[in-house]
């Protein structure tokens, strides 16, 4: 009987209602926009530098295929598997974060060691590590909700683990990834019931630490001042930001038209990765920006709705994970867009599901797969298994 039940639960398709149409639709819309914009933003520079105008389209399509596989796998694996393996995932995350720092193993690009060479592709370790740590924190909240809600130690233990990971990220250095990881995990702990006075004192401490970190590194200071007034030095420190602002400003209501961006023609660096939003805003205008923000809003809304429903059904792990993923994707998108529009200093964060980049795209797809799985699991008729066993 128990074996039979296990077999039923291991069936490829999760029970209950199938794919959440809103989340699926929003995700598909975002990756499609991503393909189009990566192509448009890179076509000229790819042609010039690589001699192959569609190089980035081809690569992003392959990554998207891998992302689809990752999402399907995550959708098919019961969340219990992740929950049980959370500790090993945490270990794995630390192994990745440490490995990339070993000289000769990690690959350095533009002064940051963020990538592990893996055959034909490079893995940006912070992306899988982020999801793995998020799974661990969710499982921690599930197991220790009582301790977390009542004691400082129950709060400080996971915070310490996350902080350690952040230190490794800062060693790469990857300030943006550290910020997003810390904020997301803190958010999960917040939703998981930590006392507000603990939470706010830690949040304040973290903000102070971030500020201190930002000010200790000269290159970050330069980025910060450039961000305050990019027009003071538009040809050096403020170059990227002013070019990004110009691109967005050129968009007006309806944009200059798909493919019509001028700023992507070597004016705007990183046009197809971190600054793809600027090219998007130039080509599709305010209408396009509103649509994009609404799509991210839809993703966040669905993830939070799934989280709320899972909590109602008693699936604390699924709820925390969905909440964490929703906050992560929403926060990263908001930060990236804010950076593009000059509201935050330049970080090196991608626009999730849209920017060019294999690691980010595959991990984001996997994360969406996890939320879809959570949605499916908690849509199961609530008393079905219990009724049968009693």
């Amino acid at each position, binding site marked *: 009987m128990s074996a039979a039940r296990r077999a039923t639960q291991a069936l490829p398709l999760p029970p209950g209602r199938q794919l959440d149409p809103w989340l699926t639709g929003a995700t598909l819309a975002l990756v499609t926009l991503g393909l189009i914009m990566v192509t448009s933003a890179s076509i000229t520079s790819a042609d010039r530098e690589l001699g192959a105008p569609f190089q980035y389209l081809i690569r992003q399509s392959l990554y998207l295929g891998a992302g689809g596989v990752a999402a399907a796998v995550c959708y098919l694996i019961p969340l219990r598997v992740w929950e049980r393996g959370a500790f090993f995932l945490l270990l794995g995350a630390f192994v990745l974060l440490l490995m990339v720092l070993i000289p000769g193993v990690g690959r350095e690009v533009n002064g940051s060691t963020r990538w592990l060479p893996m055959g034909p592709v490079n893995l940006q370790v912070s992306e899988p590590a982020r999801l793995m740590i998020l799974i661990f924190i969710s499982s921690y909240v599930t197991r220790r909700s009582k301790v977390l809600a009542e004691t400082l130690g129950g709060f400080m233990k996971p915070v310490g683990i996350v902080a350690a990971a952040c230190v490794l990220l800062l060693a790469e250095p990857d300030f943006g990834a550290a910020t997003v990881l810390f904020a997301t995990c803190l958010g999960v702990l917040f939703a998981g019931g930590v006392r507000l006075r603990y939470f706010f004192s830690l949040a304040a401490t973290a903000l102070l630490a971030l500020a201190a970190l930002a000010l200790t590194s000269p290159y970050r200071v330069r980025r910060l001042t450039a961000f305050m007034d990019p027009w003071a030095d538009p040809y050096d420190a403020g170059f990227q930001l002013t070019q990004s602002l110009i691109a967005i400003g050129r968009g007006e209501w309806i944009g200059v038209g798909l493919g019509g961006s001028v700023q992507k023609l070597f*004016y705007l660096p990183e046009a197809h990765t971190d600054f793809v939003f600027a090219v998007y805003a130039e080509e599709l205008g305010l209408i396009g920006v509103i649509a994009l923000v609404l799509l991210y809003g839809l993703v*966040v809304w669905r993830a939070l709705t799934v989280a709320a429903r899972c909590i109602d059904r008693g699936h604390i792990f699924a709820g925390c994970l969905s909440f964490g993923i929703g906050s992560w994707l929403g926060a990263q998108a908001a930060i990236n867009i804010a950076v593009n529009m000059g509201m935050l200093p330049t970080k090196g964060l991608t626009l999730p599901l849209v920017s060019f980049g294999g690691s980010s795209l595959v991990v984001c797809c996997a994360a969406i797969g996890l939320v879809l799985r959570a949605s499916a699991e908690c849509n199961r008729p609530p008393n079905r298994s219990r009724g049968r066993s009693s």
Partner: protein
Amino acid sequence: MSRMRFSKSMFQRRFHRRLLVVAVIFSAAFLVLLGRAVQLQLLDQEFLARQGDARHLRVAPIAAHRGMITDRHGEPLAVSTPVDSIWVNPKQLLEASDRVGELARALGRPSDRLLGLLTQNPDREFFYLTRHMPPYKAEAILDLEIPGVYTQREYRRYYPAGEVAGHVIGFTNIDDQGLEGLELAYDPWLSGQPGAKRVLRDRLGRAIENVESIRAPQAGRDLMTSLDLRIQYLAYRALKSMVQQQSARAGSVVILDVVTGEVLAMVNQPGYNPNDRRRFDVARFRNQAATDLFEPGSSFKPFIIAAALESGRYQADSFIDTSPGYIIVGAKTIEDKRNLGRVPITRVLTKSSNVGASRIALSLDAPQLWSVLDSFGFGQLTSSGFPGESAGLLNHHEHWREIGQAVLAYGYGLSVTPLQLAQAYAIFGAGGLKRPVSLIAVEEPPAAVRVISAATAASVMQMMETVVGPEGTARKAKLAGYRVAGKTGTVRKAAAGGYAENRYTAVFGGLAPASRPRLAIVVAIHEPGNGVYYGGEVAAPVFAEVAAGALRVLGVAPDETPADTADQRVIQAMSRP
């Protein structure tokens, strides 16, 4: 159990509350983002677009096509073809200095020299590397995609006729501005107005698209010259071969259309090829036919005869005594080669008598003589408009002394250009009417001014025909089938402190066909070096060759009777429709 359920619902309620807080924060954050987007895309849009334009938009010049110069039948004499000039921004190129070698190879230049050139001009943003490359070569260099290397469309002037019409047409400099000849004279007409356009550039400086045309380039206008390339070529060939054969220093031929005043040909030796700018020899650029002065010598005598007939003191059949073959004027003895005795004034031309011409000139009133010569155009610029044309010199009669008036009769003490002399000869051919000469094709013969009576002109024409006759000095100017009127001149060149002993200018001025003159031709050959220097020996053969060819080219009917030589039958057959 109930405690557990309670605590669970506590957790759930807290989770929901805090989830709501997070949802509100996200909503607020997304709203702020949208607000910022509105600010950037709608409110600051103008500022940002202006900043963008300041980076993207540049005003680029559009080279204007320079008008074509053609001969009277539309044969191209100067045409502009598109070429590309390679220029670099040394600043940008030096940033990619590892590619300088590649560029040097493509340009076929030593790499270290190119690098040196660049490092000497590190602060410049514009530096020509190679001007006027064929567009396909420039494109190949552009395709290397070396940073800081650009091309600029320009036009290069080609002269299909090369040396043949080089002196008249002149040439332009590398920036397409006329420097010499008609290119200079008609520069405003030929040169277009360069246009300007606003272009959108990518960050590498390449124009992506034309945003707007600020000013369309206005192509220059074509110029149809009066030259007939076929006749020009005949004259060029005949002159060149004679100059070479006689080892002469220089020479000119001018051919005028008597009916219209147009210059049909104007050639000089030594020549130069305007397409080849490497050998720059300024002295060779002068269009001597319009700019260089010489004393006309005996070729001036017909004008003295014309003045004499106009004065009324002489008739066509008047006689003049040239005995004893010399006269003494002041300190100077004027001689003939031999004593001709008392002769009709025709003989003064036929035999080129200096004594006869001087006697006649001395017998005339100086003001009257001057006035006739002046109205022939001596001492004045012609209406050719050729840059640097010389006016020549004809002293006013108040400054003449007896000796001046005497030597003037055989063409000394004044100076002319070949063009001026040809214009004056054309007046005989035009029945005494002076038409302004023109280097530009004219649609209708311009208004003429009467200089001498038709009767006088006809008399002088008849007299000049004897020069080519069996007893004349220019038997070699005779044409088969055409009657010719003309006059030789053999002039000692003026030198410091007097006249050179053995440097001569051989001149022949002539008209053909004599019965209905169409062509006025002047040939002047300077300093023949082989001991032969008479106008009748050196200049007259050139006239004959050129006139014969030109008359055939123009399809002028032969006028000599009787037509019984083989040559003439051939010519008649050719000129029949």
